[in-house]
């Protein structure tokens, strides 16, 4: 029996994980979800994947969002079930100065590269990730560019990163 309504999914999670699950947020099917405590994310994900009636067999999207005002980095998991065709969103908030979240690469293989990307661009450390290294940027790149306070380096291997505008006099 499929539990497709986000509210019902949330209720199931609440009953299993208690305080680790935040309130239900979002109004549309594509953004309805909840926050999860960073420590519980792997268990929650495994539960969502294996529990009959939920069967979120696909991690559709894993992204990180930087919120400098709230001083957190949010890791967002968009889950999808090919079996029951329903969606759910999980959000994990990590402190901005030393973000660390448990890796779900053991639950969905798709998470492996997506976590590497979030690590590369936002500097979130995924604990338990099999191969956590930069993926898009070169190994010797300074900083994590998708953070809001990222400053572009002046030059990279002798190539300056700015260009004088011809329009200026």
């Amino acid at each position, binding site marked *: 029996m499929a539990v497709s309504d986000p509210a019902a999914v949330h209720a199931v999670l609440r009953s299993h994980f208690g305080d680790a699950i935040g309130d239900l947020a979002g109004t549309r099917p*594509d953004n309805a979800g909840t926050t999860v405590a960073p420590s519980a994310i792997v268990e929650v994900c495994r539960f969502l994947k294996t529990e009959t009636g939920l069967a979120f067999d696909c991690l559709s999207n894993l992204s990180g969002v930087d919120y400098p005002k709230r001083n957190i980095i949010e890791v967002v998991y968009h889950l999808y079930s090919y079996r029951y065709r329903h969606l759910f969103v999980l959000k994990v908030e990590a402190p901005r100065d030393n973000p660390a979240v448990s890796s779900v690469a053991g639950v969905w293989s798709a998470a492996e*590269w997506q976590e590497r990307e979030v690590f590369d661009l936002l500097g979130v450390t995924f604990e338990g990730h099999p191969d956590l290294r930069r993926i898009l940027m070169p190994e010797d790149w300074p900083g994590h560019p998708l953070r809001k306070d990222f400053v572009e380096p002046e030059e990279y291997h002798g190539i300056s990163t700015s260009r004088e505008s011809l329009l200026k006099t």
Partner: protein
Amino acid sequence: MSLTGFEVEIQREVDGGLTTEDMTLSMGPQHPSTHGVLRFVVRADGEVMKEAIPDIGYLHRSIEKISEKVGWHGFMPYTDRVDYVAAMFCNQGWAMAAERLASIEVPKRAEYCRIIAAEFNRIQSHLLSVGSMAMDIGAYTPFIHTVREREYINDLIEELCGARLTFNYMRIGGVAWDIPPGWREKALSFLERFEPLIDEYNALISYNKIYTERLRNVAAISAQEAIDYNLVGPNLRGSGVRYDVRRDLPYSVYPELDFDVPVGSGELGTLGDCFDRYMVRMREMKESCKILRQCLAQLPQGPVIAKVARNFKPAAGDCYVRIESARGDMGWYVVSDGTAFPHRCKIRTGSFAAMSIIQKVSRNLMIADLIAVIASFDLVAPEIDR
């Protein structure tokens, strides 16, 4: 399960027989078959690969960061460059995300214009994929023939929006231009001519003995594996999963249209091998023609763009839009903080997922097979790197 000849060789080596030194090859970023700038570090024992480790990021153009700098309307041209082979879908994804955040109703005619443009673009993208697949297998001519057909679609789209490749056709709330007079007939006459050509391509290359031998049973991916690695689009359907965003999470006017979702059937070998992925694209082009005929027939009258403020500021919140791009389920996770600039835009693309599975499926293949695998996934470099 019996081992094939080369697996026996590897097994013997694992068992401690004759030991040879592995060869590490760097394939790319400039390599004729990498379709842009990808790199594979190949560990090979002669012709047999132990492993191909993808190395990406050579075309990372920080499009996601730019979205935070240029504003909602201003980001539209950049979406073209996310996937330049199928730019219309990226346009549509961004427009739909903004519309969903701001709860804008798009006029019916605009929706139809979008679908028409997008399906033409899908044919174009699949043509390139099919052609470059043949080129990578060593047949240069089919590629040139598909390029020839692409030119005619380019003509059509150019008349529609003024650009050949990076269309920038859609706007938040609709499309930029209405369909010009006389365009419908041209589009229909193109379809008239193009549909038989698909059969001709099948005759020329798809069922060529050498070609099928090169593709069948190579890098078969089971449905389970495909879902686990989040393969989408033709790559997923090649593994036999009948899933299409257009049908299963319908958006725009797709519910009003009648079309099939072709899936791989393992007709010549294992289910989910390179040939299945290839044939899914071949058949999807026919389906696109079907959709286009319906759209061109049903095209309603009316405006093509809703009234959207120049200074567009959607309400704070986030949304996750999924559309069926030529390379499959494309996810746009857009966060708005209520200002004139998006807070974050993450684009989840099919090629990125397909790239991540290559390391797994490439074990014990031959070097020549790796080329077929890369081509069968229809990778487009900027879609991986963004």
